[in-house]
């Protein structure tokens, strides 16, 4: 059985992620206990909340250290969703400058409206264009498929090779990242219906 640990840090819409993982045929466990990560085949870090509040939860619970151990050490597949993706970066700016997990080089910054895209937060369905780094995660999903986004901040990667997909909003941003066994997506696969479930199934097979 595909045991998936969904990390609970007190803020998230965990139930939708849990239900979606179940629908995709895996066995999810929602947990706030770092020890549960040691017996998991995969880890998902969902996210709603502020970067600083979330990081504080992960550090004080010992979850941040265990994630480092399992994902960076043991290389078990990891998927960060929305804020969960942003937490993979070096530094966040929401709620003051805060150190992140540091798995992907770069920062998390506020989206800046442009003439063509004047509205922030970025809410709704938008194109996702995978790169080579995203080929496994987006396998079988059409280039430019619409996924559901709801966010005010986005990641800015230092290393182009770590960008796994791009989305053309406010001049473009990385809508997926990858570093080793760790993936992150800015959109919500659990709310993106057919394409979202296809992506989750791909993750469950990595």
């Amino acid at each position: 059985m595909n045991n998936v640990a969904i990390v609970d840090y007190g803020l998230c819409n965990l139930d939708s992620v849990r239900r979606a993982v179940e629908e995709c045929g895996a066995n999810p466990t929602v947990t706030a206990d770092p020890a549960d990560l040691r017996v998991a085949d995969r880890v998902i870090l969902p996210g709603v909340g502020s970067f600083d509040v979330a990081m504080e939860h992960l550090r004080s619970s010992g979850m941040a250290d265990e994630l480092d151990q399992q994902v960076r050490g043991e290389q078990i597949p990891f998927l960060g969703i929305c804020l969960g993706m942003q937490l993979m970066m070096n530094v966040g700016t929401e709620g003051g400058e805060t150190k992140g997990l540091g798995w992907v080089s770069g920062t998390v910054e506020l989206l800046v409206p442009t003439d063509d895209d004047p509205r922030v937060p970025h809410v709704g369905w938008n194109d996702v264009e995978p790169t080579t780094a995203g080929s496994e995660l987006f396998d079988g999903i059409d280039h430019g498929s619409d996924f559901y986004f709801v966010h005010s901040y986005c990641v800015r990667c230092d290393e182009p090779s770590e960008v796994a997909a791009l989305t053309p909003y406010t001049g473009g941003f990385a809508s997926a990242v990858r570093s080793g066994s760790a993936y992150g997506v800015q959109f919500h696969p659990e709310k993106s219906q057919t394409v979202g479930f296809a992506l989750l199934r791909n993750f469950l097979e990595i």
Partner: protein
Amino acid sequence: MLKTRIIPTLLYRDFGLVKGVGFDSRRAVGGAMQAIKVYNMRSVDELVFLDVTATLQGRGPDVDLIDELADDCFMPLTVGGGVRTVEHVRQLLRAGADKVALGTAIIEEPDLIEQAASKFGSQCVVAVLDVCRVDGQPRISIRSGSTPTELEPAELATRVQESGAGEILLQSVERDGSMDGYDIETIRLVAEAVSIPVIASGGAGSGAHMQAAVEAGASAVSAASIFHYTEQTPLEVKRELASAGVPVRL
């Protein structure tokens, strides 16, 4: 390109769904779970679920109900009605809401938007602005449209944006259930006053009405009667909008 969202609204009262007419006479339209399953099958862009009597009855949100409904809701879900505290927001997000709508509390609990946004992020805080016409002028009304205030919609919109709201659900009390078209003038006033997305609600009777709301600056259009009481499906409306040049997800 970001698509214009077409959002069915489910108005919930006590144990069933209702259809609004001028916000006060609401007819039952069946089980909430059934409706969610249908919209799931139809892959709608997003759903708004409003418990329209919670505030009037002095209740908080029915978290257990949302928990149950969200289990079968694999689409983005905004939940509102009776939300008065940060704890309510937390409970609803945990139960599966992606965004939480704050209405009467914007006025009666002025710090709530700021508190919720700083804890959970602006992106999940939706401010509901109910607008009625007083001597022809648009004014904010609270308590499910029953209590008019002196506030102008654009003024309150600016204020909620400054407090940290991530989106505005702009509803017209008089046009609710009329299917006569949105209050385009108010949509334009509010959309021009803020840079956060505005969802137009109240009065949709056709794709052309929705197109007019989008042209006035709405990022999304919400509708209830057109989907619950006519043969129109969200997909048909989207095809009509697409042929008129509005970007939608098909």
